[in-house]
């Protein structure tokens, strides 16, 4: 756009210059024609003066004028070369001038030869021929033509200049307009950018609040589960107390009833005079005995089930209680802690014919009670699930890596089938031969504790090839970690 305008301006300015040049050219032609005419007149008048006075100054004047005529004529011819009509006029003019110069020359010869009369006659003849008039006429025509051209070219030049000026004006206007448009565009994009930035910031803030909201939700859900487990296990206990209590009452009632049946059954045989035997001494017989045994068996199942249920509920209660306990990070000499655990388990260890090897362990900052529970559960498990008939060997190793302490408790026990590696960490689930008492809580509890301490635990084991439990705990655990976890 601007290029077009610039090109147009340049073109128009050039055109105006061209036009001006033409105007100047025209004026020049006019001048030259006038000058030529002047020289011709001057020659004529000088010749006349010479003819009348025979003064040599007139002759000199005449010769100077004649000398000036030829170059002037040449200039006119050169200048008017661009215009066909003017060229023609110039030819006519130059022919007339040559004729006139010829006449002048003849007149001068006549004068020089001392024949003034003849010169005068020649002059008269020349006048009669009207060559001078022709010259004047042609010159006037040429000047008229040139003036016409001048007018035309002046008008042209004016138009070109006006066009150039308006072109420049339009160009400037367009430049200003473009500048305004670009300013507006820049401002608009700046506004859009600011708005986008604001939106981004808002989205970021929103994201943060969403994250904290979700975290709060999760925390609340977790607390809710804890409360739920606590309340449920608590409230389940209440009816269980009744069931157990009245089952025991029933048991006693049953004893009373069967004792009475026994005593009644014996009455006819022994006679009414006999005093009833002491409690429990009456032996029931036949169908009565069977009934009593069935009754006791049923009650026995009920009681053992209640006892089992109570253990499960207690386990849940303990777990939730652990989940609610506040952990206190303290510096712990891990080796000492585990030695203490090993010494409390000395009896079981000796009974299982096992040996516990303790290697140097890294110290950590953690919750003492939690660590005690973790290690005593794992060591206890290792002792509990040794291979029957094989002397047990339990090894506890430790090392540090990238701010974490890694503990390994390995045994040469019965091992765990790979299918059960996940299952053993679940609440109330156990694996392998069920020949040892237990509720399936230990490992679930241990894993919950390890997680709360910001660590992880895993097992690697094969059936009949021993097990290795690996616990990874942060070396310097602090309360803020835990708060982040909860």
């Amino acid at each position, binding site marked *: 756009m601007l290029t077009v305008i610039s090109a147009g301006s340049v073109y128009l300015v050039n055109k105006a210059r061209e036009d001006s040049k033409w105007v100047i050219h025209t004026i020049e032609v006019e001048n030259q024609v006038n000058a030529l005419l002047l020289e011709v007149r001057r020659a004529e008048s000088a010749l006349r003066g010479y003819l009348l006075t025979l003064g040599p100054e007139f002759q000199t004047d005449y010769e100077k004028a004649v000398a000036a005529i030829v170059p002037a004529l040449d200039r006119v011819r050169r200048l008017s070369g661009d215009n066909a009509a003017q060229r023609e006029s110039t030819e006519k003019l130059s022919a007339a001038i040559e004729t006139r110069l010829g006449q002048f020359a003849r007149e001068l010869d006549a004068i020089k030869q001392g024949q003034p009369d003849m010169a005068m006659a020649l002059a008269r003849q020349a006048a009669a021929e009207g060559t001078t008039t022709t010259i004047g006429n042609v010159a006037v025509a040429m000047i008229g033509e040139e003036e016409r051209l001048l007018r035309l070219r002046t008008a042209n030049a004016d138009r070109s200049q006006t066009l150039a000026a308006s072109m420049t004006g339009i160009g400037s206007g367009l430049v200003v307009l473009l500048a305004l448009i670009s300013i507006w565009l820049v401002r608009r994009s700046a506004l859009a950018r600011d708005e986008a930035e604001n939106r981004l910031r808002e989205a970021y803030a929103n994201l943060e609040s969403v994250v904290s909201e979700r975290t709060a939700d999760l925390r609340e859900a977790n607390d809710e589960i804890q409360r739920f487990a606590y309340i449920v296990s608590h409230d389940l206990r*209440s009816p269980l107390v*009744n069931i157990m209590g009245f089952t025991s009452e029933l048991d006693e009632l049953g004893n009373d009833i069967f004792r009475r049946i026994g005593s009644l059954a014996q009455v006819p045989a022994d006679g009414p005079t006999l005093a009833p035997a002491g409690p429990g001494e009456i032996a029931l017989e036949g169908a009565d005995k069977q009934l009593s045994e069935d009754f006791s068996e049923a009650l026995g199942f009920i009681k053992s089930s209640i006892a089992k249920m109570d253990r499960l509920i207690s386990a849940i209660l303990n777990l939730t209680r652990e989940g609610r306990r506040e952990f206190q990070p303290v510096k712990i000499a891990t080796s000492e802690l585990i030695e203490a655990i090993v010494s409390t388990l000395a009896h079981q260890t000796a009974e299982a014919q096992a040996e516990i090897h303790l290697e140097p362990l890294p110290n950590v900052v953690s919750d003492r009670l939690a660590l005690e529970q973790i290690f005593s559960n794992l060591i206890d498990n290792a002792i509990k699930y040794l291979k029957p008939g094989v002397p047990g060997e339990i090894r506890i190793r430790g090392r540090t890596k990238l701010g974490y302490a890694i503990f390994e408790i390995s045994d040469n026990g019965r091992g765990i089938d790979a299918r059960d590696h996940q299952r053993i960490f679940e609440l109330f689930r156990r694996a392998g031969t069920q020949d040892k008492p237990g509720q399936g809580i230990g490992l679930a509890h241990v894993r919950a504790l390890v997680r709360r301490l910001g660590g992880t635990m895993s097992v690697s084991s094969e059936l009949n090839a021993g097990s290795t439990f690996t616990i990874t705990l942060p070396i310097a655990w602090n309360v803020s970690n835990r708060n982040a976890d909860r």
Partner: protein
Amino acid sequence: MTQPVTIIMIEDDEGHARLIERNIRRSGVNNEIVSFKNGTDAMQHLFGADGSGLVQKGNALLILLDLNLPDMTGIDILRQIKENKYLKASPVVVLTTTDDSQEIKRCYELGCNVYITKPVNYENFANAIRQLGLFFSVIQVPPAAP
């Protein structure tokens, strides 16, 4: 002068109430037992309509209290009893399923005299209650503050 002790039992579970009563009777305690199934009625009885506790002035009471009540917590009842000048001398036995050490500690801090966990192991429970009964029969409830 000695006045027969009235046993106030605040227990929402009828079964528990029956079991406790039976075992108390079995141990040979024949004192009057007044049962309440919720906290509001019990408070009404203990503190009277005006809530001052004046109605129980001079009465020898022994309070058996369950902590899980439908309308209020036993802890609240315990605190109010121990803050009332007419009632604070009466022994309070907390009988509940909770064996949480925190809760037990709190009860003792509030002035509970005996804390008994209702175990599912019935024999233990029955024994505890019977011993409590023996304990009732020998204690002399001090006369309430004049």
